[in-house]
């Protein structure tokens, strides 16, 4: 759990939920453990005093979690396109408007049952139905995915794809480092399998986060028969999701060793913060700039 597990438990019980949220408390504790100054601004926002800068965090997200990266976490169709472009494995899929349930059902039949239906542009687990076996179930799942958007602005697109065979594994990646892998055989069970994970899958997880622009750390979910194949064969997998605003499942497994994900994030900001990179790259204004678009130059 990083540092003193009992001290963390004490810190959490004293501060969550009245003073702050769980994720924010994890970051505060990890920063304090490393001797960094922390100023709490509200239940979610802290300022951490790194040696040469004050860095804000909202929950576990600092400046290296960008708006674009966060947005793609909620755009599942875009995630899949970016992963495909990076040569990673995703399931065949298509997106549909809420007014296209019949077209979507026809696509599901063409894919073959079972299929998974999920909101295409919504982060989190709301509205996801896996293992749909027939048209009747499909129609209900399609409606659930649409309703999951609630009052969210934008188009309620629904994504349909085959339900991949295998179990779900959460990989938490910070920079180019895999911090934790959690096996989730059922919804309530989280088993730490970090040390048993095949290096190839560790590499896939890192590549999956790298493929998303503006995301230095995130939790990638993939479906695979196992993460510890007995032989040296390339382990099969399907990438399913990426999330930036979640409590890492590896931080609190129900079985196995807890992993100090929050600490790894603070270490990332201590050693290789992405947000500082632009400071060393000068901006060159365009050399051949013409008049601004739409400007009718009066001679």
């Amino acid at each position, binding site marked *: 759990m990083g540092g003193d597990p009992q001290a963390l438990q004490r810190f959490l019980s004293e501060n969550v939920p009245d003073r702050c949220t769980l994720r924010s408390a994890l970051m505060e504790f990890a920063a304090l453990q490393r001797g960094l100054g922390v100023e709490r601004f509200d239940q979610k926002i802290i300022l951490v005093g790194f040696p040469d800068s004050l860095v804000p965090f909202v929950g576990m997200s600092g400046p290296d979690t960008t708006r674009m990266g966060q947005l793609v976490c909620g755009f599942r169709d875009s995630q899949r396109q970016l992963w495909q472009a990076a040569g990673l494995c995703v399931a065949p899929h298509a997106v549909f408007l809420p007014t296209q349930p019949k077209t979507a059902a026809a696509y599901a039949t063409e894919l073959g049952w079972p299929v998974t239906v999920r909101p295409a542009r919504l982060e989190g687990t709301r509205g996801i139905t896996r293992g749909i076996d027939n048209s009747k179930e499909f129609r209900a799942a399609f409606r659930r995915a649409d309703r999951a958007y609630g009052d969210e602005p934008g188009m309620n697109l629904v994504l349909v794809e085959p339900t991949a065979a295998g179990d779900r594994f959460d990989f938490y990646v910070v920079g180019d480092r895999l911090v934790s892998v959690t096996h989730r055989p059922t919804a309530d069970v989280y088993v730490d399998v970090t040390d048993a994970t095949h290096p190839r899958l560790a590499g896939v997880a890192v590549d999956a986060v790298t493929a998303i622009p503006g995301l230095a750390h995130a939790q990638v979910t993939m479906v695979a028969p196992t993460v510890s194949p007995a032989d040296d064969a390339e382990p099969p997998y399907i990438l399913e999701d990426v999330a930036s605003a979640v409590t890492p499942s590896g931080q609190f497994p129900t079985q196995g060793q807890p992993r100090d994900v929050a600490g790894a994030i603070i270490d990332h900001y201590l050693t290789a913060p992405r947000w500082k990179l632009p400071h060393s790259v000068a901006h060159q204004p365009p050399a051949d700039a013409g008049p*601004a678009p739409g400007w009718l130059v009066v001679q």
Partner: protein
Amino acid sequence: MSVAAAAELAAALPRLDYCALESSWAKGTVTIEPPPRRDGRRRLELGDAPGIGGDIVLSGAVQYMTRYTDGSQAPPPPPTYAGLTANTFDLDTLLHFEKANGSVDTANPLLDRAALAYGLNTTRLGRGVLFAGHPKLAEPIGFASRRSSWTGVSTRAVVDKKDLAKKILHAAGVAVPQGDVFNPDQSEQAVRYALSLGVPVVVKPRAGSHGAGVTTDLREEGDIRSAIAALASTSFAQRAFVVEEYAPGEDYRFLVVGDRVVSVVLRRPASVHGDGRSSVLELVIQKNRHRLENPQTHGSLIELGQNAGYWLDRQGLTLDSVPAEGSLVKLGSAGNIANGGDSVEVLDETHPSLLDLAVRATQAIPGLDHSGVDLIGDHRLSTDEHRAVVIEVNSNPGTDLNHFPIFGTPRDVSTSLILRQCELAGYRPSHVLDRLSVRIDVWGRVQGVGYRRWFERLANERGVVGSIRNLSSGQVEAHIAGDLNDVWLLSSLAVTGPPRAKPNRVVTTHVSEVSPIDRFEVR
């Protein structure tokens, strides 16, 4: 005027042929003087004067009236500022991006244009999300509105809370005005704090934008109390507010990209200049007619609301006053374009020390590579010669005031933003394409909704050649070629489509050639 009142009015006036009711977004208040009387059942009573018993006072809706005025008199001369004549823009093209509320939203389309002009392929997911790619880029670049893949999530939380941003700026040695935050139930403490500062103060919402709820230059206790009380009648009621030192000077927006300032816009509060003949109301309508001609101000005409009334009072004027020729009539304090202000681009005249200050302010906040820095001071003076302070930093800065200032040189800041993202992704394109040949793939509800005919009409209007066809997969595919601005317009509008269409993804890819090359055809 309520629907019920309008119905009663129609019944009382048999010769009334039609009356116009406010639309959902038009919220001007039209009153009658003297006010109409109502009986015990709240029905309108006949007035003493002819007609409806009083004069309709339309000034509260002047920003809507202006769109429909059609005066026979010669148009007034265009506004000028310090010898500069107002800029003219290709409004016909830009109005393709007009929204229902009258504003012209060019931010994402102009980023799309810049990317296409430099040979990048673009993907648009709705109107506000753009990705651009090129084989030589280490990663795709992207914008959600004007936030890029270098704009931090926590950064937004910081800049949205003005006191937190000031704390970080102050720690980095950037000059900021002294101030504090108060909850709505701390009015008395806020007033005492304001008076303790011993200088004029500003009252503003802690998390406001576009100058909403901002009152400046408050010198008397009564004015401070009024400003705090006024917040209670806005959307910021029950929210924390800031009281801070009022920094005298002009109000500027510095657009910082990386380590450079690419545009500086002086923002003047809403005002009119007297001509010795016209009333304030007439001057406002004249000025609003010119504001309609500018893409940036098309949706933000001068309003004659409570704030304008306050400023007219301070100057001893009414809407019927006829200001002397050349005299300036202030109609607001917050120099914000959305509140009827004027914009003057002054980058070339801005002192380097102020440019440096704006860059330092941006780099002080982790997770900002480009930003809009709001600064109070005098752009011609160095920081040694006067006190210049940063009052806000914006992570999602509007670019329309840089592209379409009323006065001064328009700056193509979208190109700077795109090139900056390319620099950070390891590839700097150098050559601007004057003509484009592209393939446009459109996903979503785009078949059976008149999409191809709509596209064809636009293509013919803009002199673009090529073709468009439906694909069996449900998408639409077009191949087009033409001048940069024409192809860009079609590419950017493709994500909107005709009324019945609902595109959800548009990918524009550069190609070597299209056919046919002498006309546009639907296949």
